[in-house]
């Protein structure tokens, strides 16, 4: 399909070393995955609200769903989604509403990791889980939303 996404909407920043460059042992809590900045326009809000049947039709507040997907856009740009990793779930805490025209900054960092032993049909497997924080703030450094994503890493991950 023809790609219509306006890539200039989102800029990203962060260290040259990206998450997929690390071994599991190096994925320490607090490791900086970088982040990104964007500004959502009324046009974008109208487009999203119409598509999702959202009640928020071009009002002042940005639908939380848009903060979610722009955050994920930054995750793609910063290569937070490791090849073969399965997104297991999210924990979301809502703070102050995002407004149309706000400059939103999303920062990404490793929150935690754990290894879970699983036994099936007499075989023991170690599942590796990685938790990544996605924290969004506005231009006044006020919290918008905190999302912690959990990933089941591929069995081949060293």
């Amino acid at each position, binding site marked *: 399909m023809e790609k219509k996404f306006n890539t200039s909407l989102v800029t990203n920043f962060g260290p040259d070393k990206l998450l997929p460059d690390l071994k599991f042992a190096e994925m320490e809590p607090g490791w900086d995955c970088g982040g990104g900045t964007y500004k959502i326009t009324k046009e974008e809000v109208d487009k999203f609200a119409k598509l*999702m049947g959202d009640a928020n039709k071009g009002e002042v507040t940005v639908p939380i*769903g848009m903060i*979610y*997907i722009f955050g*994920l856009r930054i995750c793609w740009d910063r290569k937070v989604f490791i090849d073969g990793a399965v997104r297991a779930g999210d*924990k979301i805490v*809502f703070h102050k509403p995002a407004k149309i025209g706000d400059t939103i900054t999303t920062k990404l960092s490793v929150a935690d990791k754990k290894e879970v032993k699983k036994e099936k049909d007499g075989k023991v497997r170690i599942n590796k889980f990685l938790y990544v924080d996605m924290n969004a703030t506005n231009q006044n450094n006020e919290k918008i939303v905190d999302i912690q994503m959990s990933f089941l890493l591929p069995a081949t991950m060293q």
Partner: protein
Amino acid sequence: MSAIDFASIKAGDVLPSKSLAVSQQLINEYADICGDYNSIHVDVEGMKNNPMFGGSTIAHGTINVEPVIQALCAIEGVLWPVEGTKVDLQFRAPVKPGFVIASNLVVKDKKTEGGKNILICDMKIQNQQGGDCVMGSAEIVIP
């Protein structure tokens, strides 16, 4: 204004639901907004030969969550979930074009903490056949 009377609500009550009909067109237009053109979402022909999801594309994970986000806003009577509202969710099964997904929030308990009235709920997002696509819990602040 909230659609809920906190004083009278009790465990087992089912909260108002929101639903979303998912089509390939919706997935494609969503990709245009978020920039995620992963083939598992948009390559209809390519995915026909891929057994991973039964020969189908699947919706972006954030589309799956949209009904519960809209339900939270409707329940709280706001356009953005009230500060302190929390959702904990696990993705259980993919959502495919043709699915109609709906939020299912059932009150488990309630509490008043720091001056806030909070409903503690079990949360699911199910398809039209009652299959669980997303499961978890929510703490909903009633203004």
